[in-house]
């Protein structure tokens, strides 16, 4: 695995987690994983376990906070919510990814047309 690819993957998952928490409010790990699966349909094949590395990383950067709580059906779970710093980061990341995907879309469109 080359580091560049790893970084991109890591970054992608981090953004997805931030997006989920920013829009959904407080969620536990399972909830976040399910939400990402649902939204992306079957496009993203996610090993649910991998979000825990992402969660701890975001938490240590101070972008999300965590707290043990109780679920609807009375089960103990750790709940994550986005922090103020996290929201700023989320705004930055969102802008970045939108620009990137626009550029990528444009680049890919020209190459299929054979327009280059």
């Amino acid at each position, binding site marked *: 695995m080359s580091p560049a690819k790893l970084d991109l993957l890591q970054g992608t998952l981090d953004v997805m987690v931030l997006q989920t928490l920013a829009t959904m409010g407080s969620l*536990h*790990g*399972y*909830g976040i*994983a*399910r939400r990402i699966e649902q939204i992306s349909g079957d496009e993203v094949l996610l*090993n*649910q*376990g*991998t979000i*825990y*590395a*992402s*969660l*701890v*990383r975001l*938490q*240590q*950067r*101070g*972008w999300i906070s965590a707290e043990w709580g109780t*679920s609807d*059906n009375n*089960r*103990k*779970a*750790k709940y994550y919510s986005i922090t103020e*710093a996290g929201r700023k*980061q989320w705004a930055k990341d969102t802008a970045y990814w939108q620009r990137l995907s626009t550029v990528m879309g444009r680049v890919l469109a020209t190459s299929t047309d054979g327009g280059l």
Partner: protein
Amino acid sequence: MGAIREAFNRLLSFFHKPQRDTDLEAELQSHIDLAVEENISRGMPPDEARRRALVRFGGVQQAREQQREARGLLWLDVLKQDLRFTTRTLRRDSGFATTAILILALGIGANIVVFSVVDTILLRPLPFPDADHLVRIAPKVSKCGASCATYSTDAVQEFQRQNKSFSDFTGYDAFTAPGNWKLTGGDVPVPVSQIDVMDNFFHTLGVQPLMGRLTFTAEESRPSGPPVVILSYPFWRRQLNADPNIIGKAVSFGNTPNTVVGVLPDTFDFGSVYSPGTKMDVFTPYIYDRVREYGNMLSLTGRLNPGVTLAQAQAEADLLFPTLDGSVKRGWKGHYTAHLWDLKDFISGSLRRSLIVLWGAVGLILLIVCVNLSNLLLARAAARSKEFAMRSALGASRSRIVRQLLTESLILSVAGALLGLGLAFAAVFYLAHQGSIALPLLSSIRIDKTALAWTIFIAVTAGLLFGIVPGLRIASGNLQNALKDSAASTTGGQATARLRAVLVVSQIALACVLLIAAGLLLRSFLRVLDVDLGFEPSRAAAISLDYNDNGDPVKRGVFDREVLHRIQSIPGVQTAGITDSLPMSRNRSWDISAKGKHYEPGELPGTFAYVVTPGYLNAIGMRLVKGRDMTWEDNDPKQAVVIINETVARYLWPNEDPIDRIASIGGSDARVIGVIADVRETTAEAKSGWQMYVSAVAPQFGPQDPQLVIRSSLPAKTLQPTALAALRQFNPGQPVADLKPIQLLVDHASSPRRFFVYLVGIFAGLGLILASLGIYGVISYSVTQRTQEIGIRVALGATLARVQFDVIRATLQLALIGIAIGTLASLAASSLIASLLFGTTPTDPITFLGMVFVLGSIALLAGYIPARRASRINPMVALRNN
């Protein structure tokens, strides 16, 4: 901000590992439970719900590892693992670990000690504030020892008034003798070393008092002033029980009460700065008007004004000093010159070369230690090549294995450094508390922060140096080869064997350089011991006398005769005599010339003068070559008698018989009655100067601080109580002084050389042992490795002698290459130590051959042991093995 917080959190996580792990476990568990629950609620049977949940989750262990990696410090975890693993392997191989740590401890310990000495004497500034402004002032050319290294009271006071370069200018009386005072008031008088210093002496140096004050008032510096003293810290502790209220109290010296006005701090040691190897106890004011006409008395130190350079001050001194008066009253011009030295350079400049050589020697030792350990580790790595190959095959990365090897060598060197530090503390403590080595500042030697930083530096360097070679070997190794190579035995292969041979050769070469340097120094030292001193120190001993004759030569004569009579009647005493200065202790010079002849000013050097009784020359073992000794009747007030040495005789009366010639001593007549063989009066290494001996009973000369010299077949320790009892019975004022062997004075004078020779000798011995261990290791290892081959050769009919010869030849090959390189390196480096040698050329063939022979024989011995083992290999056993 996020990055710092993350780093901090990662560190926190590292230290809270178990807690974080438990938390993660609980979270993962709740994740699975939630998933199972949801699946069941969708109508799956429990088993299927659980299976699906686990599939969606992915590898649980992987998730754990990823999370740990994201939150903690991976490298620190790895380091912890490496450390744990290394300590475990080292404990299993405790013989190797012990050897390695011991060798390292010796190498590193020696380095710390030498570094501390070098740091104290050469590198660290003197223990005074703004020490770089302190200047020592001495005449440009000194022809006559202490008398010419000093200036008169008038000259010093004139210079104090006229100069613009110095903020403070001071001096001390250079003519004091150890044990010249006595502490009275107790049961028996105790000898005390006292010195007169100018009122601003301590102020100039910037010494702060422990108690009281360290300056003398103008009143106290007058002949009629109140007697006051400043005490040294050790004296105050030892003799006055560290009395905290001592200031203002009177302490009795020679039955005169002296008021204590100050106590010096522990950090100030007069001897270590101005007179290495001696201790001063009591400091008293220099009474200007009492000694104004005594001639040159003061040894000078000054403190430069801020912004004034040494060169500027020198220029001013060159203008002023020739104009200064020796004595205003007598209208005598001093014709002074002055050379200004940075005080630090003055103290340690002459030792620079010796210390650098010592530092080099100890550095070589460390190199040999590293090479040796590299070799040991390499052998170990070779033996473990199978293990490493296995670990590689199982997925350990090469860098991980190298890192682990480096960790191992670093652990060893850190352990060695700790042990070495312990050894060094002991050695430095010893050096700081012995008083007999005449090296300056030695009492202030200590292991400080610089030395500790140095320790860490050399430990890490050593660790890297000896870890890197085996590490690289492993890293460059081919996995397949390693597995194949070690199929039959545990060898490291041909390349490793060659590398080890190179290491051994360099070890021998380094040891050879050390040995030759040590040999040259040792030979010089033996030459110094062999010098004809002009007197016989063995079996002679001296004790200070204390008797107040009020300057009456008749009383003095009676007293001296009685003392000598009583001492000579002690059984075992052969002869005795009294002098006011012993050789190789203090000196003072007067002028002597042939009466009636004309000499240019400055033509004649100052002449060391000794005031002695009849029998002294005999007691100290000086040889009369012409004429006769003094008698008790040599007390003619009109014409004194004098005994001169051969150098004086040759110059004043060339090709003539000097006996019965009339000499002029400081203007008064003296008849030459004898000529003695030249005496080395300062050290064995310096040439003899001019010397003369005058009679203690003559009214012209007043001896001070008389020393009784006893020649006896008894050791000084045995004789001491009897001699002291005889003296005290006759003179109750006699202090309880030690009867000191004259040999001590000689040893003291040569102690710096002895110190260096011992240290370099020890290092060379250490180097020799290490090098022979290295040879032994390599040869013995190659014999083990070739057991099978040797077995086959023996089976095919090779004689035992032949087998032995082959092994020894391999040894000699290594040794000879090493010795050849070492000898060449020594020849190249010999000019570096040329200035430290005495009576020995830097390429002295006997030393070179001798040391090469020693090294060669040791190498041969180291090779012979494995050779014997090789010749005893039983072919049947050897072939059956493996």
